[in-house]
């Protein structure tokens, strides 16, 4: 398995949280979250938001009741252009 540097977590909040509020809900430092990713609404009607966190800083899960879920993977994604196979000459995937 690849070793992702960052993973996704979802949090539940009554209103759109700031990055600092999201960090507080997760019990981690703001610096552990990806500021460029920010807090992304997933299903605001259900109060569901996502953040990206350093893989090594994922908070522990207990029996439940935390206002968060995760970690969720963020695997590598690639274009699906002309494939390379053993009979082709290689090159990129365009």
């Amino acid at each position: 398995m690849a070793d992702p540097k960052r993973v996704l977590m979802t949090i539940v909040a009554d209103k759109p949280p700031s990055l600092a509020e999201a960090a507080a809900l997760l019990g981690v430092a703001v610096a552990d979250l990806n500021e460029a990713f920010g807090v992304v609404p997933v299903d605001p009607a259900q109060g569901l938001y996502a953040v990206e966190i350093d893989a090594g800083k994922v908070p522990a899960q207990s029996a439940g009741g935390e206002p968060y879920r995760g970690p969720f993977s963020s695997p590598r994604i690639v274009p699906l252009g002309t494939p390379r196979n053993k009979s082709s000459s290689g090159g990129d995937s365009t």
Partner: protein
Amino acid sequence: MQVPVLVVLPSQAPLKEAAAAFLAGADHRDALSSASVPSAVALDSSFPAVPVGSSGPGGTHAATLAPEASERFAVRGTVDVDHVSNVPTHAEGHPIFSDPAISPFLTCGGTPPVGGAGEVQQRLKTAALAARGLDGAKVAVAIMDTGINLAHLQAQPLSKDAFLDIANSWVVPGTTTTPGFHPLDHGTMCAYDVLIAAPKATLLDYPVLGSKAPGGALGGSVLSLAFKAYSQIMSSWAVSFDPNGLSRYDALVISNAWGILHPTSDFPEGHPGRYIDNPNHPFNQLVGMLVRSGADIVFAAGNCGSPCADISCSGLTTGMITGANALADVLTLAGCDTADERVGYSSQGPSIANMFQNKPDVTAYTHFQGSLVAGANAPDGGTSAACAVAAGCVAALRTRLKPSATPSAGLFDQLRATARRPPGVAAAGWNADYGFGIIDPEAVAQHFGV
């Protein structure tokens, strides 16, 4: 079982007459039906008698292949045996030869382009769509890809009028490339292929696969960047209602010609946070939210089909339609060439366990000479091109089919219901290679009366 065979018979008048009639363009069947044929062979009178010359010393010469001169003729028929291994070598002393089914060579990654964008337009009946006013006007198509090079598009005759909405495109946080000014790559190919059926669609540049994306590598990125992009689209399309935002368009189509690199790049099987087989992964949830807000989302099936899977598939060819590409709410595209033959790398269904199983949904054209992004002899290929072609078909239909009246599910249902049955597929319904068949947007337009 009836096994097709070829039988070589000595010359006789009916065979000469049948062969001569066929060569003259006349009906050969009456003459053939009076030929003397071994009783074990049921003659196929639709197949003419074929002169095969002499069996004597010196072999067959051209002169002996004339019907009147030939000493032997081949005819086609069937023999009734319980197993193909029991087909006799001779019938009443006459040799029997096999007549196996043949099929064209599959188009694979190294195959030159099969046809061009013009053939794709003919197959999709884009002239008929245009006559109906179905050209993509006031429809936005987001290209979730490596970024668009607008100058290249505008230099190609087919896409010379390409229009990009820069204000509603996306700049990846931490990067500075202006939308439409990306290096020539896969994203420009997809943009071109969208415009084949929807020449007046407005392009949106979402470079989630760009090499300069944070966390990305050459020709790839990570899922969280697509997640962020989807959030941006969701906000502009369904939340802010800014009159200058995406809500100014009548419809929004999102082309996703990407997938994960390999299952091993995800969390291990059984992990609750895994992406590829988990409808509750937050990205998959966000895709569902966007569909429910009225967007049409189109995905490529992938290039892990048998027998020509991409080397990155590591030989895995089953259960390789994964993640959002395997969600019930999206339209998932297999690929065929312009001869309607499935390309040998197009991922086959069913999807990975736990996801919607009957994927791909339909098939669209790929592996044709189109955008010239990778050079004159390189095809617009992969299920990427099929995805983009289909996204263009959806955009064309959306010109007069508003999402409020015809939600995505209804439109996709009709694309499945009207898909053309591919060659060699006898039964109606879904199959693992083509889904429900080859996309036919004109048939959908007829169904809806637009």
